[in-house]
Structures are given as structure tokens and as C-alpha cells.
């Protein structure tokens, strides 16, 4: 854990409840993430994982409870969070190449008017370099494989020099080998960033993360070693094959 950062939680979720119309998605959720942690958020589909991320990002407002990110309201803090969505929320046939997509992560930095500056382009190149995707810089966004697109989205999240990285199912659309690469990269990034990652694959992510939080409408927190058959059964209703941990 970096010692020069304050030790108050970078993300603090207090007694948060949220529902889409009549559908209650989250209730009494409490979560505090300390600087430098790598937290895996797991739970069944429709358990509210993506909704909780959107609340932390300030894209949604909780009906009850309070969320603070970097001691600010989520909407104010959003620029210091790097976010990698589960599904790219853009059309794949949009006429744009990778470098310009990554440069978009620099919005909100520097002057408001005009085109990207040289510094933005350099930052985009560096970010692509960091995720080992420099060779894709001039490629149209529509001509990337799932794994390549994931790297580009990660670069777009990193280019704004965030303090926190939030990823929603980053490995849902890629194969096992690319998945290992992504997690190795995240472990590397965790040296300087706090990471919150959503996954449905509880067994796989527990090898990488420092702590797992389990969400199914409400939340229970554990260290990785505390995940046992009971927890999994409570969370998924007993349909999950038990996986032994090597920790």
C-alpha cells in the first residue's frame, strides 16, 4: 500500500439502497475500499454489481444512503476514476481509430476548446504502450478482436491518470490466455492504483485480488481466505461447483 496516500477509504458506500422503478436492486449496502486495495466484486447475474459500479461512478443516484469517492461526491470524483465498461457503449462501425478513442480519456484535462494537443497524443501512446497495444494505434476501432478491444478500453481508462480503476467483467468476452494477460497487467497496475473489479467468476478472480466482496442485493465482505462453501452457497444458491483455494 503506497504510504504517501491518506488512509481514509477511497470509496465509501454507506447503507445504500437502489431500485429501478419497482425492482429493488440493492439494499443496505456498506462497502469501504482502502487505498491500494484490489477488490473483486462477485455475485450472481442481476445481483446488482453493475448498478453498484454506476452508483460509485455517479451515473446513477442512490435512493437511500451515501457514497463518497476520494472524499467527494461521485460525480465530482468521476474524472479521477478510470472506468472499463462490460460492453462497449459505442457502435463498432464508428469511423475512428484506436488512438483517438484512447485520447478521449484526456477530456476534462487541459483547455476546453479545439483539437487534442501533442501532450494528449503522447499520453495516448504511453497508455497504449502500457497495455501492450501500441501496434493497434492506427487500427479502426471496428477491426479489433475482443481481447484487443479490452486493452484499448483499459488504455482509455488509464490515459486520464486515474487514482482508482473500475472494471466491469473485463474478461467476459475473451479467451483464457488473454484473460491471464489482463489479470497480470492489472496486478502490475495495482502497484499504483486502487482497483475495483466486477466478475461473476468467483474462483478465478480470488487468485488475483486482495479481497472479495460478495453482492446479491446486499453485501458481505470477505478476505479471499474466508470464501468457503457456505458463502458460495448463500450467494449462488448452491449450484456452484466448489473450488479449492491455493492461498
Amino acid at each position, binding site marked *: 500500500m503506497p504510504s504517501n496516500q491518506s488512509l481514509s477509504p477511497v470509496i465509501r458506500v454507506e447503507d445504500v439502497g437502489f431500485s429501478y422503478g419497482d425492482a429493488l436492486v440493492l439494499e443496505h449496502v456498506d462497502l469501504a475500499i482502502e487505498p491500494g486495495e484490489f477488490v473483486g466484486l462477485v455475485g450472481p447475474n442481476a445481483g446488482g454489481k453493475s448498478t453498484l459500479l454506476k452508483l460509485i461512478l455517479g451515473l446513477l443516484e442512490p435512493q437511500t444512503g451515501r457514497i463518497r469517492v476520494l472524499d467527494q461526491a461521485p460525480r465530482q470524483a468521476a474524472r479521477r476514476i478510470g472506468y472499463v465498461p462490460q460492453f462497449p457503449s459505442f457502435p463498432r462501425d464508428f469511423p*475512428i481509430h484506436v488512438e483517438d478513442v484512447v485520447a478521449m480519456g484526456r*477530456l476534462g484535462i487541459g483547455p476546453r476548446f479545439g483539437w487534442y494537443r501533442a501532450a494528449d497524443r503522447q499520453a495516448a501512446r504511453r497508455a497504449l504502450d502500457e497495455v501492450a497495444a501500441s501496434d493497434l494505434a492506427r487500427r*479502426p476501432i471496428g477491426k479489433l478482436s475482443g481481447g484487443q478491444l479490452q486493452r484499448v478500453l483499459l488504455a482509455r481508462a488509464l490515459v486520464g491518470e486515474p487514482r482508482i480503476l473500475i472494471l466491469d467483467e473485463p474478461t467476459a468476452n475473451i479467451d483464457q490466455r488473454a484473460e491471464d494477460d489482463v489479470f497480470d497487467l492489472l496486478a502490475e497496475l495495482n502497484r499504483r492504483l486502487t482497483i475495483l473489479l466486477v466478475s461473476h467468476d468467483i474462483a478465478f478472480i480470488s487468485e488475483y485480488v486482495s479481497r472479495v466482496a460478495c453482492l446479491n442485493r446486499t453485501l458481505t465482505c470477505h478476505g479471499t481466505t474466508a470464501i468457503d462453501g457456505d458463502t458460495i452457497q448463500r450467494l449462488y444458491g448452491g449450484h456452484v461447483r466448489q473450488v479449492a483455494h491455493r492461498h
Partner: protein
Amino acid sequence: MSEFLTALGDYAFLQTALLAGLLASVGCGVIGTFVVVKRIAFMAGGIAHSVLGGMGAALYFGLDPFAGALVAAILSALLIGAVRLAWKTQEDTMIGALWAIGMAIGVLFIAKTPGYASDLMSFLFGNILLVPTRELWLMAGLDLVLILTVALFYRQFLAVTFDEEFARLRGVPVTFFYLLLLCLVAVTVVLLIQVVGLILVIALLTLPAAIAGHYVRSLGVMMLVATLLGGLFTSLGLALSFGPDLPAGPTMILLAGGVYLASALLSHRLARHRALRRVTAA
């Protein structure tokens, strides 16, 4: 064609018409590109048609229809934008309703304006040969507004058209830029109504950009190519219609539509050809 070129030297109204077409194509290239990549052609259609309400009202009260069109277009852009932002569930029905209401208001006003009934056709289908010279300056001014606004906020417009959610996270005021973009669409619609009338506006707004989109891989180049294509279609349409004395607007649209269909087939073929070559080379 040569007949047109000779006449072009002789008649000032033809020169005005040619210039009007070229000025309109700037709007259709720059803003049409956003309409195509953001897939808001239906909204643009709604804005274009409800403009008739403003034109009709301006005529009835003895004002300049051009000014009436501009006010109505901006109003309906803001209204349609607000509907889209607040009413996500029945957005298309709502836009369809505004589309029809605007037209109905326009037709009623025109019906009650003595002596102007024949102008309905030129509103609906445009008449580039009747564009007054002073309106060229107005068109050039609107072009300038379009280009300056897009140039100043290019990154923001790009982000809002590409990925609204991400733009919001980066602190871009998405609602503001979304509504601003629709206002620019409204301005462009008014520019194009001069040339092809409000029914055919949507074709000139989308087809050149869509053709460009078949071949280019960046938004800036797409705008440039679409502007050039727009200029080509309006000029060539004007020239082709002159000899046989056809209405210019529909001639331009048929030209643009024909090229679009051919281009869609061609780019489809090219993609298949490339895929085949890749497989056989492997």
C-alpha cells in the same frame, strides 16, 4: 450539360442557384456526418418537417419565411431533444407526433394566408432557382456558425456522438452538447430547405455522409468527403435538370440516392472480396 454551362455564364439566377447548392453542401457534409454516425436521421426528419409550422406562421403574419423556418427548426430541435432525453421509452412515437403536428400547423397557416397557396409546393420541394441573392449571405453566415461551433468543440461533439456514458464520466456536459448538436442539425435543415425543400432534406443530410462512411475511417475525412459529394450532387443535379426543364431538387436527390445504392452494393462486394482474399491467402 454544355447548354447549362453556357446558360450559367448568362443568367445570374443560375449562378446564385449553384452557389446556394455549394453553400448548403457544407452543412450537409459537416452536420450530416454527425447525423449518420449518431443515427439520428429520424430526429432530423422530425425537425425538418415540423419547420413547416414556422414557415406557415411567418407567411401568415407577413414575416420572412426563412426566419420563421430558423426559429421553428431550433424550437423543434430543443423539443425533440428534450423528448429523447426525458422520455426514452416512447421516443419514436413522440417524435412522429411532433413531426405531424408541425406540418399540420404549417398547412393550416398557409391555407389561411391569402394568395400564398402555391408556395406550399416550393416549401415542400424547394426551388433552388428562386433563392434570392441576399439569402446567399445568410446561408454563408449559417455555414460559418456551423463550422466555428464544430471546430471549437470538436472533441466534445466527437465524445458525445461516440460514447455518451464515457463523455459524461469525463465531465463533458452531455445534455448541453447533445441539444447543441440538434440545434446545428436544425440550422443545417434550414440551409438545405432552400435547395431541396423540407421533404427531401433528410436525403441530402444523410446520403453524402453515408456514402463517405462506406470508405473512410475518420470523422474529419468523412466530413470533407461528404461536403465534396454534397457539392457534386447539388451542382450536377442542377446541371442535369436544366436542359430537360426538370425540378432541380428531386434530380439532385435521385442522383444522390442512386450513387448511395450503388456505393452500398460496392462496399458490400468489396468487404466480401477482402474476406475471400484473406481466407485464400491463409
